[in-house]
């Protein structure tokens, strides 16, 4: 059996699309529940629609960034598997790392299609599935417990402090995501991209606070400014 044919077979497309169907259904159900709750809470439809629109626009840029690495994955895993794994948990680099690790367990080279073969591919499929199971399993057993803890904290302590605590934890999380781009290795170009986009974000948020449509595009505009000012300066 030809590997290329097997990894792009219609059957595999169908098997891979099940995950996408689950995700789309899950999102549709949650969205319906959220719209109903927005109504209960008295959130005006214009307000949540503007938020929804902004989230759509904001996601375009970051969704494009894994496309290049996706091409590398398609070459090794075929289109249906790559398509499924890029849409579910595990960033592109995580999947690529897992495929390499799985090939190591199988004793084959992922870069060499002749050696990789059906065996290498099946190891990659199982490896990615087992790895992704980790996140989903912990989400399944932890989320309602964490939610219970937060609900309890809100009744036990001052809700104003809990809101502050949430903000502190979120700011800490993004400080953790941002700081490795700034130091280790220290790159002036990354500082430039982060600082320019931060300044543009600040200007759009503060100076143009009344321009609702502009607010929806704030992140996209800041990102593009940060990226391309850096390209102009550093190449």
């Amino acid at each position, binding site marked *: 059996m030809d590997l290329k044919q097997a990894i792009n077979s219609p059957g595999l497309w169908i098997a891979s699309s099940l995950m996408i169907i*689950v995700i789309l259904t899950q999102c549709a159900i949650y969205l319906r529940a959220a719209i109903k709750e927005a109504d209960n809470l008295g959130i005006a439809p214009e307000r949540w629609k503007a938020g929804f629109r902004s989230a759509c626009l904001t996601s375009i840029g970051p969704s494009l960034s894994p496309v290049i690495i*996706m091409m590398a994955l398609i070459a090794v895993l075929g289109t249906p598997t790559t398509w499924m794994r890029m849409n579910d948990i595990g960033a592109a680099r995580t999947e690529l790392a897992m495929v390499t690790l799985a090939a190591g367990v199988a004793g084959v080279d992922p870069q060499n299609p002749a050696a990789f073969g059906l065996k290498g591919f099946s190891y990659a499929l199982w490896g990615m599935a087992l790895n992704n199971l980790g996140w989903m399993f912990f989400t399944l057993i932890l989320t309602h417990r964490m939610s219970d803890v937060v609900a309890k904290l809100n009744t036990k302590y001052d809700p104003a402090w809990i809101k502050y605590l949430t903000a502190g934890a979120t700011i800490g999380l993004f400080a953790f995501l941002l700081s490795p781009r700034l130091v280790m290795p220290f790159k002036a170009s990354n500082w430039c991209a982060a600082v320019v986009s931060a300044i543009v974000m600040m200007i759009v948020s503060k100076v143009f606070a009344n321009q609702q449509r502009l607010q929806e595009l704030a992140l996209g505009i*800041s990102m593009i400014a940060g990226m391309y000012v850096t390209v102009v300066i550093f190449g």
Partner: protein
Amino acid sequence: MTNPEAYRQKCIKIGLVSVTAAIIANFCPAIYFYITYGVMPPFSDLIKLWTVAAFTFGVSWFIQPTTFFSLMGVSGTYIGWVTGNCADIRCPAITMAQKVAGYEAGTPEGDVMATMGITASTFTSICIITFFAVAGGELINQLPPFIKAGFKYILPAVFGAVYTQLCTKHLKVGFLTIILAVILTYLFKTAKVPNWILNIAIILGGVLIARIDFKSKQKKA
């Protein structure tokens, strides 16, 4: 009629069912491949694969859903850890949905906007990824070099802007936390301390700084 507790319980119920369905779907291609082609790693190798994955990513399995919870909320967590890309796609979308609608994270309204933001971002990213998976990467290769050159700065630019957005209401906390984070990152990475410890340390630092700021504001009031 508002009843945040009923909404929370409903979100948990949807989450438990949908994540279970996702776990089943997660194994379908591997099982299909075994049924059709008869190729599957022996049980001992499955254990090896799991062990390799657990050693490499095991701490993230546990730490990431926990540390992102404050921003993502209940339904965001159930969706986000099935669809992935929480840091670079989902969280920015949630932040913008809350900002544009004018609600803060950690409030019932903020939670609803988080759900809307994350579903919006999932629909968008599925469309984009499906388009490029099917249409092929040729389109990306056709882009002018200047446009492509910007791609390598996407992450610092996204995180810089999202960070600023998160800090607009807590400037002092934001300013002090990023300084602390840069120093800790430098020290921990030089000492080769594992990343997940750095993750927890910076978040605890942020919470501590928020606590000090909260107390000093209370005193002033």
